[in-house]
């Protein structure tokens, strides 16, 4: 078993986390998130050109001539693949996409529309709403579960750890203007589950040790528990990250954002189980009495 003094750095890492959270919140509030068409409405076209001389600015110019609002063009994997997003979404005109394709063919040659996503403003606001509800609901469900299984001090620690992970992950997406779409919501929910999972494993051990040692202070007790579960924490994060990196590198462009969010979430989830959840138990001065009292009730 390892014997690392994690608890010596509780304060330092708490300050670091606090700084990261503040930075994330500042970005989230002032810069906001880069919503994809799922949540903002508009049109996304993934296209492949047959003419290799086509570049981003050429494609942007031809789209700009079509009066489609704000147009953004990005390379997407291959040299001939591009992703184009624009504000306009025309639900009254069923020929909308067809017309764009025709105009494009005459200006830059033959293009193949590999993927088209066209989301109206009503649908996008509904999707955003249901995404927010889903994340809030899962946080509430986790809170409820851990409240039933543990004492309130533990619930608070676990929930704060989850908030920490979700806020920082979204903060990073805001800072780097990475796109938030439906699959990112799925990733965030999975992060919530993973972070909880990780915290629960250490907390189970803390509770077990609280029963075992009555004379060890919570400050050291958390450290013992972290060390006892450390090899499991590392092995599980490594296998999960191996799987996620494999998706990130080989799973295709569409899954890049999803797997990136998950990778960040797993890293922060592992970190927060040690450096957010446990210091909270220390701050709340959890002792053997905390669990004995609860168990008598």
């Amino acid at each position, binding site marked *: 078993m390892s014997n690392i003094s994690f608890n010596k750095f509780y304060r330092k890492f708490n300050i670091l986390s606090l700084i990261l959270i503040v930075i994330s919140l500042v970005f989230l509030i002032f810069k906001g998130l880069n919503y994809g068409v799922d949540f903002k409405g508009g049109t996304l076209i*993934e296209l492949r050109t047959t003419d290799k001389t086509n570049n981003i600015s050429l494609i942007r110019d031809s789209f700009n001539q079509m009066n489609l609002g704000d147009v953004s063009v990005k390379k997407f994997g291959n040299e001939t693949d591009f992703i184009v997003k624009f504000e306009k979404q025309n639900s009254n005109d069923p*020929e909308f996409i067809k017309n764009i394709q025709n105009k494009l063919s005459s200006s830059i040659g033959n293009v193949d529309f590999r993927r088209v996503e066209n*989301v*109206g403003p009503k649908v996008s606001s509904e999707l955003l709403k249901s995404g927010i509800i889903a994340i809030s609901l899962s946080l509430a469900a986790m809170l409820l579960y851990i409240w039933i299984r543990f004492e309130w001090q533990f619930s608070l620690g676990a929930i704060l750890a989850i908030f920490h992970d979700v806020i920082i992950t979204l903060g990073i997406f805001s800072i780097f203007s990475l796109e938030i779409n439906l699959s990112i919501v799925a990733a965030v929910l999975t992060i919530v589950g993973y972070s909880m999972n990780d915290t629960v494993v250490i907390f189970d051990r803390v509770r077990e040790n609280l029963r075992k040692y009555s004379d060890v202070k919570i400050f050291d007790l958390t450290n013992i528990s972290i060390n006892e579960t450390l090899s499991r924490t590392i092995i599980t994060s490594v296998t999960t990250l*191996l799987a996620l*990196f494999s998706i990130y590198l080989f799973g295709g462009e569409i*899954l890049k954002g999803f797997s990136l969010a998950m990778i960040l979430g797993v890293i922060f989830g592992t970190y927060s189980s040690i450096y957010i959840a446990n210091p909270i138990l220390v701050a709340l001065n959890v002792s053997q009495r905390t669990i004995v009292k609860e168990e008598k009730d």
Partner: protein
Amino acid sequence: MLYFSKLRIISVIVFTIIFSYFAISNFVKFDDNFFSKNINLGLDLQGGSYLLLEIDNRPVITQKLQAKIIELKRYFKEKQITLKNFSLKGDTISFETTDNEIENVINILNDKDSDVNTYYPTYKSHEFDVLEDGNLFSLNYSRYGLVLLKNSSLDQAIEIVRRRVDEVGTNEPNILKRGNDRILVELPGLDDPNRIKSLLGKTANLTFQFISQNNEESFGTEKLSFEDGSRDAIVSKRIILSGDNLVDAKPTMNSQTNETVVSFSLDRVGAKKFGKATSTGVGKQLAIVLDGKIISAPSVREPIIGGSGQISGDFTFQSATDLALLLRSGALPAPLNIIEERTVGPDLGQDSIDAGILSLFIGFLLVILFMIYKYRAFGLIANLALVSNLFLLIGILTLFEATLTLPGIAGIILTVGMAVDANVLIFERIKEETKNEKNPIIAFDAGYTKSRTTILDANITTLIAAFILFFMGSGPVKGFSVTLGVGILTTLFSVYFIARLLTSLYVVKNKDKEQLL
């Protein structure tokens, strides 16, 4: 924890083999009579279109309200109650009555057996909410009146949509109601959704109306423009015939002009009406109007009494075929808007499948190598459990014919990464136990027992997240939640039955060795 009865061993093996068979049958075809189910590929993997249509009910509501005004006028006239100053503002009908009739009108409108304001006992509500202010009445659709109206227009629309999609002939379209004003259309394997989109976007309201020669028509006139936008014409509002009377329509070649035309035949009522109108209107121009645009306006040369005719109008064969299709399938009760479209081309779908399988394979391999490096023999056991976990997961998805999406594949890969967690928890616990307990059987047993609550806690939290995603998520994301959720269940099975069985066999056989784990 380590003891397994013979019966249990056999059932675990049989169970695993059956589901592995289900899983493999997706890739290798065995006997179709025994098991012929397959995992469905989502639209993002097999290519195809997802369209969400919303009915614009405003014209229907206005139409119904106008009809209601006529009905109210007629009804109260029969009862010899005078109503005056009818008006329709927004969605509100208002009218006035004389002071001594107020009581009467209220009674009639709020009577549960009322003929003009239907009462729905199931909803305990009338079709219209009635508000009175002195002798001024206003009628609004009640909440349930509106719901019923929307439902009936949705029912009609979905029927028409189904006919149009079927006529185009795509394979296994999926057409579903969403709420009370939306229709979801999934068209797997469809290469080019443009044709279906333009077919679904048309209301296809066909009418025959005379072009008016003088502006004095008893029914009033309206100005309509031609389909090609070349000119406008003043048309009588009197509708001679509508698309409802059509029984068939098909594209044909007019042998005299060598033009593609749409020929139609009418039902008996329609034929009679058409015959009468064309006999009195010889020499007049008859406008053929589709969705408010004139397609063509031929002159009537002789009465048309046979109940069939032709529509000409610069058609290509394709556009004539589409018009005939629209006329055969009937008019939509209200316009449909496509409020969400997601189309994936078949080659992108195949690319996604390839990339998904490649990353699954690599992720799987990395995890397997890492586990062998970490735990040697027990790593092998954990890996065997992982392989059967994968087969079980795919087998269950096959049994329920679940839909596999790209995020769903990501869910499987993630399950592979997280599935070893339970075995890791157990193995690490056993390592701790062996420090104080020399008998490996007791140590292993304690390891399993003591880690059980932790494993349950940890998996239930992920299961909660998967459940919420399933109920809140849509489309591809739902596919992710399914594989994630089922993956947790198969993980628990593979850990507690398969891995534990193998562990117990191994430990019992090697119990005299030093340092098993």
